[in-house]
């Protein structure tokens, strides 16, 4: 799944608007049938990248190739790339069935094929009963389904989804995520999904491209992104983490000792002594008590009960953050209680930090 065989390949895509660099040389390669999420905060360039792939915007530099053909300069209606827009962009003057039929008619599909195809895709998104309805009579979730059916009905080589669930409430969103995943698997569509919602990306994707400031920071499977975030941004944007800045004091045999405000900690990494670094630890890797190799102590600030887990926030030195997820809160712990915390050396992530100014 994760072997990007180059069904879609974006090479060195760059785009500036005035003085602002929105895309700064992005490379992306994905295989047929793959589902990739572009994940990042607003303004990271994910929507711009999507529009360039769709042909709705031309890159200043770079190439886009789909299924072995260079489509960089090809207009959108000749690309075979469908888009599900954030606001769905359904045609208000057409019925549900006419919306789904639009692409087929525009491509001059044979008359007798249109009705069965429309019926098939309306069935796929469970909207058959609404075929004759006006778009305006539909709820947000129903419009969403029609938009997906309309985009899939033309049998696109590539489906692009631009934050399609952002207008839906949480419960509906989660139901739609599962539904969409099922539908795309049934149809076997290659898809790029743009989102700023990390849970959505982790749930749905074969691979995630974490984007920041016009670049792809990391491209990997959800597990890779979560357990081995490649950059401090990926660490911070996807999931929660304990973050401790420090300085390397010893380095030998692929191991470093880092002096932080919370104490001296060990990690597996190659850095020269004296290098400023940032240590990151996922909260569920940390345990209460000093059973593991890397040990610190911190006063509890707050405990957030989350059902299966309790999230513990600790008072931390400046620039640091200490966060632990544990199944049970120790009975005697309250705000201000100093707790012993520890984790394995292997679970300590190390990133080069910007050199502190003198």
């Amino acid at each position, binding site marked *: 799944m994760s072997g990007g065989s180059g069904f879609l390949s974006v090479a060195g895509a760059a785009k500036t608007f005035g003085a602002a660099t929105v895309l700064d040389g992005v490379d992306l390669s994905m295989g047929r049938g793959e589902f990739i999420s572009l994940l990042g905060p607003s303004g990271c360039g994910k929507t711009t990248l999507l529009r360039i792939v769709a042909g*709705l915007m031309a890159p200043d530099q770079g190439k886009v190739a789909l299924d072995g053909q260079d489509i960089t300069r090809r207009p*959108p*209606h000749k690309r075979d790339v469908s888009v599900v827009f954030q606001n769905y962009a359904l*045609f208000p*003057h057409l019925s549900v069935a006419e919306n789904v039929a639009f*692409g087929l008619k*525009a491509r001059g599909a044979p008359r007798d094929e249109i009705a069965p195809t429309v019926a098939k895709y309306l069935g796929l998104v469970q909207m058959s009963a609404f075929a004759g309805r006006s778009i305006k009579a539909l709820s947000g979730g129903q419009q969403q389904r029609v938009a997906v059916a309309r985009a899939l009905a*033309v049998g696109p080589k590539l489906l*692009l989804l631009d934050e399609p669930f952002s207008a839906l409430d949480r419960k509906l969103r989660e139901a739609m995520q599962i539904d969409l995943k099922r539908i795309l698997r049934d149809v076997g569509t290659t898809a790029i999904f743009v989102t700023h919602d990390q849970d959505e990306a982790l749930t749905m994707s074969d691979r995630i491209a974490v984007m920041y400031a016009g670049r792809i920071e990391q491209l990997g499977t959800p597990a890779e992104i979560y357990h081995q975030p490649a950059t401090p941004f990926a660490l911070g944007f996807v999931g929660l983490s304990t973050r401790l800045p420090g300085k390397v004091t010893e380095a030998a045999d692929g191991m470093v000792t880092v002096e932080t405000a919370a104490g001296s900690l060990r990690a597996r990494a190659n850095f020269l002594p004296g290098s400023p670094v940032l240590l990151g630890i996922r909260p569920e890797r940390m345990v209460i008590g000093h059973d593991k190799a890397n040990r610190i102590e911190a006063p509890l600030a707050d405990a957030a009960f989350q059902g299966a887990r309790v999230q513990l926030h600790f008072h931390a030195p400046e620039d640091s953050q200490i966060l632990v997820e544990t199944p049970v809160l120790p009975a005697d712990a309250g705000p201000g209680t100093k707790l012993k915390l520890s984790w394995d050396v292997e679970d300590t992530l190390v990133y080069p930090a910007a050199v502190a100014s003198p």
Partner: protein
Amino acid sequence: MSAARRLDPVLLLALPAVLYIAVIYGVPLLVLLGRSLLVGGVPSLAPFISFFSDGFSWIVIGNTVRISVLVTLLCLVIGYPTALALARTRGAMQALILVAIILPLSVGVVVKAFAWQIVLRRDGIVSQFMTGIGLWDEPQRLLFTEAGLVIGAANVFVPFMILPIYSVLKLIDPRLGEAAATLGASPFYRFFKVALPLSLPGIVTGIAFVFSMAASMYVIPSLLIGDRFQTLATLTGRSFLFMRNEQLGSTTAVVLLVLTVAVVVASASLSKRLGGAS
């Protein structure tokens, strides 16, 4: 539709306008209508019967409808692309087009009509240009022809076609065009299946505006085509001002009123129906 329709107190805000129109426009209109239906103080349809049985009346009605339709069509052909350009441009360019459309409205109709007289006469700029590029063998006068009237009138009324179409076009979500494109629709197909149907309410409103104004115009035909060519509006004017035939004048005025109201009402209901689908 709900059966019980209550009077909205907000409607009271329209009261000053309603009173103003009632006094300034409604009362004289009733007087006019009364005159056309009263012969020597007795209610009678005789004025209408004699009007409609006169062949000349039908020529006048024909003139009115023909000129109004031609002016409306010319305004639509010129106005739609302009409205599209206005809706698609941004910033300084959009402001420039908007000013170019609205500023001429500040020039009075009489001034414009006189200007057209100069432009359309035998030694006018149009004639010079057409003979200059060899399309006309010899200078011709467009002044005092139906073509000249249609050209001049369209110039005056075209903003009233552009603005309603523009106001509808600018509200169309630009993503609809993008969605159509990514579904495989060519620019041509996108225009005829998305932009055009969605802008129909604006087109209908523009047609209602221009048609009713063209049907009732008085100064422009007086200056650009003259007395030989009569429309319902000019005949109404002549009946009152020159022929002192108030009976005929009020009859033609009522016929003109019914014609324009019919077009406006029909287009309003059409617009509502089309708007209901968008």
